[in-house]
């Protein structure tokens, strides 16, 4: 066992110093523990993002965590602050918030006055070579160094220390001698630090690369910020002592080490808040929040259920008791209040996620899933045993989500509301581009590689180069790329910058800046410096205000069609017929090729089928080969069996298959005798990819409890094997049910109001699975023509004209303000000619060119080339019209889809002559037929498979519709570069026609690019 030395490193940077820390927090902790270092002080640049993970990692290995930060001061100097106790942490949050918010984004700058005003509980260290004192001494300005040190000492009486480090840089020894002398003269204690930026000496290379990225330099460049040597690593106490003794002598060294230890002892390791901090809900009277929640829930239950049965009452009381015991009544009321605001403002919303397991959430209008009727377990959402913070997710119409946030901000005050951040990390493409640039690769070389890269972790790059055909086709010289691949592996998953969580906000009972520093995000909102997991550890509760464009599209469609959304039935037979035929392009959650193929086999005829569908087409069930057995059981081709009669009720609705997380909880409860809360804990433990040993241990517990509960050992073992297999990818039933409701209603709209629905989808792009070109094709297939924009008829969105869809004015290069100017001018009187339009609107040239290419002025002149000449100042006389190919290419460029025809028409004659089929013909051919089809590849993807072999799915789009193509590994390995390569063009695919259910598909045998047709290059 390593001897723990009386020494701690007080100045340590983690990867959260963003490009200035090269060793992961867990590794830093392990290295410290292995060297017997008693404590580490986290001092990242201007942020505390690593604090929670740092504390957890150090606690795990028995090293004391000290929390602090290195601040950037006016003039670019550095100063280190360490938290002595909890108050110091709160003050550090305040100081850093001011440093960020009072300065330009990403250029935080702390003012010494702000530090002094909030200095309680903080210890000041003089900083590294970029500290003001070190800089003064290095420039031989003794007086200035003395003045600054005196000022610091006065501002932090008994809490200011000089930092002394032996970095083995030129001038270090002289600097250290002067620092020691300064300390002696002014009576300031000196402590030993090493400005640690990496754990091992070898990690210097990683740090050097990060520094190059940070300073936008190449390895070959000379840059002052790049350290000369590799000495900023986690040195052992012995090394630190020896270097100091060499530099300053034994006596000074002993005093410095003693000072360092006393500072370690002085700083508390429990400075991070953890107590629940949520604002008390203003009930508007003396009524308590618990009482108000009870009242609202029972009022809601009356309107939801009419009569409150004993089952409903028991369930509501059970939930309210848990909510009350955990202290979350205020949280529920706050969410209730904001959905009430959404309702009163006409903002469409839908509660989702595990909150839909709650009957209280249903009764007070947060969700639309009747968890009691569905038999959903509240404990999947909240339990006393797990005592995890609740997390309510609500989707809002994307256009108004920010309005909801604004309401919350106004109601609870700016100082108590903020967005949760995300730690955006190095992904494979960004790693290749940034690291490659630092190493000195040409941009083109990196672009070639990055564009072909699949979505793999950056540390799998080297392996991927030989695994994926599109990467092999690049024929990269491995020697040249060796360092790049190695560094991509080392930096995989390293935090790169703070982003804004898609919808997570936190509300705090106390000022948020007591708990987290805030900074400005790119989108102009204040974000906490902690992500969703870390804010929870700090006692904050997150509410997810998600923006869902499908809700915007639904809102547009129901408005256009004058439809009562709430009255849309969930059992409309013709809608289910459409779903069964897989005609679901554009339908929420049911439109992917896998979903469409499933629907053609599943024979869905009621709501539960759609709930199961939402849960089935996920990586887990697909990887676990669950889909086919489920379909077979659903359609009576396989018997429904269960391992124990007690499972019959639990697995009835999924035909004996464990599909939902709630089922795992119920099984553990019924078979293992766990309480629901314990069972959910078990499920969570099993979910988080445990090692085989850990899983075996869990299994032992489950099996022994099941045996005690009357199950035979054999059955208990089998049941555990079963839930073990599904626990890692089981889906939350409540969430599936919430999504299924929207899915069926959107399918109803697509079925009965296709013009309104597809117009709404096109207005809200980008959204959904398919690009606009596929949606236009789908609308056309349903008999809805999409018309070009018209300067006298189009608006800002796509609109319905009879049974046709009119394209919007928002073409490429069109600004909303210009479009509004067009509408404003048009409201005075219609435009009478192209010239009249130009004269009155005076639009920018790029926007006019796009409008012309989209066909916006076809009513006056269909010769678009002539109009382009006119727009550019020419006369536009005797100009030949565009060919069809050119016309389509320019339409696609302006609109993202074509109107005058489909680009595949350009090849069709030749394809017909060659016996190539189109998508509409496949339905008439027998399965097993050898066919060749051609089209544009749409969304090629490689979902994970149980065998680990690569199966690629894509659709081919031609002028008649889509053909779904499956490409197995052997074919993919030959032709993958045409599917995922850098330049994608229309493909021909030869293969065998397959039919699963009524669904024609193609199993590819050979494929390749179609011979080029010049204008189609634009596609």
């Amino acid at each position, binding site marked *: 066992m390593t001897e723990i030395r009386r020494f701690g490193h007080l100045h340590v940077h983690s990867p959260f110093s963003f490009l200035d820390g090269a060793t992961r927090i867990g590794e830093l902790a392990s290295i410290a523990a292995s060297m017997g270092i008693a404590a580490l002080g986290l001092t990242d640049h201007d942020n505390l993002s690593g604090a929670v993970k740092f504390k957890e990692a150090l606690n795990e290995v028995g090293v004391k965590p000290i929390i602090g930060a290195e601040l950037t001061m006016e003039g670019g100097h550095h100063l280190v602050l360490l938290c002595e106790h909890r108050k110091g942490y709160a003050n550090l949050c305040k100081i850093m918030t001011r440093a960020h918010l009072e300065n330009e984004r990403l250029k935080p700058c702390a003012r010494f006055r702000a530090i002094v005003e909030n200095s309680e509980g903080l210890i000041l260290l003089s900083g590294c070579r970029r500290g003001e004192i070190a800089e003064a001494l290095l420039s031989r300005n003794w007086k200035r160094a003395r003045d600054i040190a005196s000022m610091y000492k006065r501002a932090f009486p008994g809490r200011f220390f000089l930092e002394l480090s032996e970095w*083995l840089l030129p001038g*270090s020894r*002289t600097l250290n001698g002067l620092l020691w002398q300064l300390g002696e003269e002014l009576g300031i204690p000196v402590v030993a630090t090493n400005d640690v930026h990496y754990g091992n000496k070898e990690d210097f290379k990683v740090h*050097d690369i990060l520094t190059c990225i940070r300073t936008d330099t190449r390895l070959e460049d000379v840059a002052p910020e790049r350290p*000369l*040597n590799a000495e900023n690593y986690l040195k052992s106490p012995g090394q630190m002592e*020896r270097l100091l003794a060499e530099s300053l002598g034994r006596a000074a060294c002993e005093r410095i080490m003693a000072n360092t230890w006393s500072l370690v002892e002085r700083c508390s390791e429990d400075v991070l808040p953890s107590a629940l901090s949520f604002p008390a809900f203003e009930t508007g009277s003396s009524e308590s929040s618990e009482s108000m929640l009870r009242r609202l829930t029972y009022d809601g239950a009356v309107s939801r259920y009419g009569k409150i049965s004993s089952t409903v009452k028991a369930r509501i009381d059970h939930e309210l008791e848990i909510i009350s015991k955990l202290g979350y009544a205020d949280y529920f009321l706050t969410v209730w209040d904001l959905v009430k605001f959404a309702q009163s403002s006409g903002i469409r919303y839908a509660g989702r996620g595990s909150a839909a397991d709650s009957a209280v959430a249903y009764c007070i209008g947060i969700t639309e899933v009747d968890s009691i009727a569905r038999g959903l377990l509240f404990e999947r959402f909240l339990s006393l045993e797990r005592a995890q913070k609740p997390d309510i997710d609500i989707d809002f119409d994307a256009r108004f989500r920010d309005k909801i946030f604004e309401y919350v901000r106004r109601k609870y005050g700016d100082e108590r509301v903020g967005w949760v951040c995300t730690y955006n990390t190095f992904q494979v493409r960004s790693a290749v581009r940034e690291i490659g640039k630092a*190493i000195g690769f040409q941009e083109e070389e990196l672009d070639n590689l990055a564009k072909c890269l699949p979505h793999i972790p950056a540390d799998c790059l080297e392996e991927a180069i030989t695994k994926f055909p599109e990467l092999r086709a690049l024929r990269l010289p491995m020697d040249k790329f060796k360092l790049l691949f190695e560094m991509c592996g080392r930096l995989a998953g390293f935090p790169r910058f703070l982003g804004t969580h898609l919808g997570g906000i936190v509300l705090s009972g106390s000022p948020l800046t007591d708990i987290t520093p805030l900074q400005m995000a790119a989108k102009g909102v204040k974000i906490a410096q902690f992500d969703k997991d870390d804010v929870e550890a700090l006692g904050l509760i997150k509410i997810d205000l998600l923006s869902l464009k499908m809700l915007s599209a639904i809102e547009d469609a129901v408005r256009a069609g004058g439809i009562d959304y709430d009255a849309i039935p969930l059992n409309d037979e013709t809608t289910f017929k459409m779903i069964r035929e897989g005609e679901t392009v554009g339908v929420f959650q049911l439109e992917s090729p896998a979903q469409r193929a499933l629907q053609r086999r599943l024979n869905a005829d009621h709501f539960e089928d759609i709930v199961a569908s939402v849960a089935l087409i996920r990586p887990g069930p697909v990887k676990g080969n669950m889909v086919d057995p489920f379909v077979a059981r659903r359609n009576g081709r396989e018997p429904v069996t269960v391992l124990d009669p007690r499972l019959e009720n639990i697995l009835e609705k999924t035909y004996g298959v464990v599909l939902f997380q709630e089922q795992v909880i119920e099984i553990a409860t019924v078979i293992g005798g766990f309480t629901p809360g314990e069972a959910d804990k078990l499920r969570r433990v099993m979910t988080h990819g445990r090692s085989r040993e850990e899983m075996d241990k869990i299994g032992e517990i489950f099996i022994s409890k099941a045996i005690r509960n009357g199950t035979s050992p054999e059955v208990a073992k089998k049941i555990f094997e079963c839930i073990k297999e599904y626990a890692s990818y089981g889906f939350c039933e409540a969430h599936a049910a919430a999504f299924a409701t929207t899915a069926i209603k959107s399918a109803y709209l697509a079925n009965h109001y296709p013009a309104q629905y597809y117009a709404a989808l096109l207005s809200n792009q980008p959204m959904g699975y398919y690009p606009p070109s596929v949606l236009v094709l789908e609308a056309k297939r349903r008999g809805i023509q999409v018309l070009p924009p018209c300067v006298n008829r189009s608006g800002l969105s796509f609109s319905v004209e009879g049974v046709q869809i009119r394209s919007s004015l928002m073409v490429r290069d069109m600004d909303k303000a210009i479009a509004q100017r067009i509408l404003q001018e048009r409201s005075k009187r219609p435009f009478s000619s192209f010239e009249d339009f130009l004269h009155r609107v005076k639009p920018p040239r790029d926007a006019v060119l796009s409008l012309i290419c989209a066909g916006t002025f076809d009513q006056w002149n269909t010769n678009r080339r002539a109009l382009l000449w006119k727009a550019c100042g020419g006369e536009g006389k005797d100009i030949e019209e565009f060919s069809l190919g050119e016309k389509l290419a320019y339409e696609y460029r302006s609109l993202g889809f074509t109107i005058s025809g489909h680009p595949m028409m350009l090849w069709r004659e030749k394809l017909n002559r060659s016996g190539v089929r189109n998508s509409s013909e496949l339905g008439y051919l027998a399965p097993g037929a050898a066919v060749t089809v051609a089209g544009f590849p749409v969304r090629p993807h490689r979902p994970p498979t149980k065998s680990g072999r690569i199966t690629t799915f894509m659709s081919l789009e031609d002028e008649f519709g889509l053909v779904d193509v499956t490409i197995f590994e052997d074919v993919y390995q030959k032709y993958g570069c045409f599917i995922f390569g850098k330049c994608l063009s229309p493909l021909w695919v030869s293969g065998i026609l397959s039919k699963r259910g009524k669904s024609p598909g193609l199993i590819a045998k050979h494929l390749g690019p179609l011979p080029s047709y010049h204008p189609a290059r634009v596609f």
Partner: protein
Amino acid sequence: MSLPKDVPIRVMALNYDGSLKLRAFSCGGRWYRVTRVLEEWFDTGEWWKGESEKRFYRVEAALSLFEVYYEPQSKTWRLYKVYD
């Protein structure tokens, strides 16, 4: 002092407790006794080209200042600079 720069030199040094104590070096046919080591630093050089870390010393000898370095890859000492 016109001594050749960046040439191999001979050095007398003690290796004590993992650190080198430079005592004397020979250059241009003459031995210089190190009276004081003023600074000592490491330079990683062009690591991406396989260069190894060099160890530099700024020393006082024969009333002059010298910078010498040790290059572990070739196990050689070299004179880097002379401050006349």
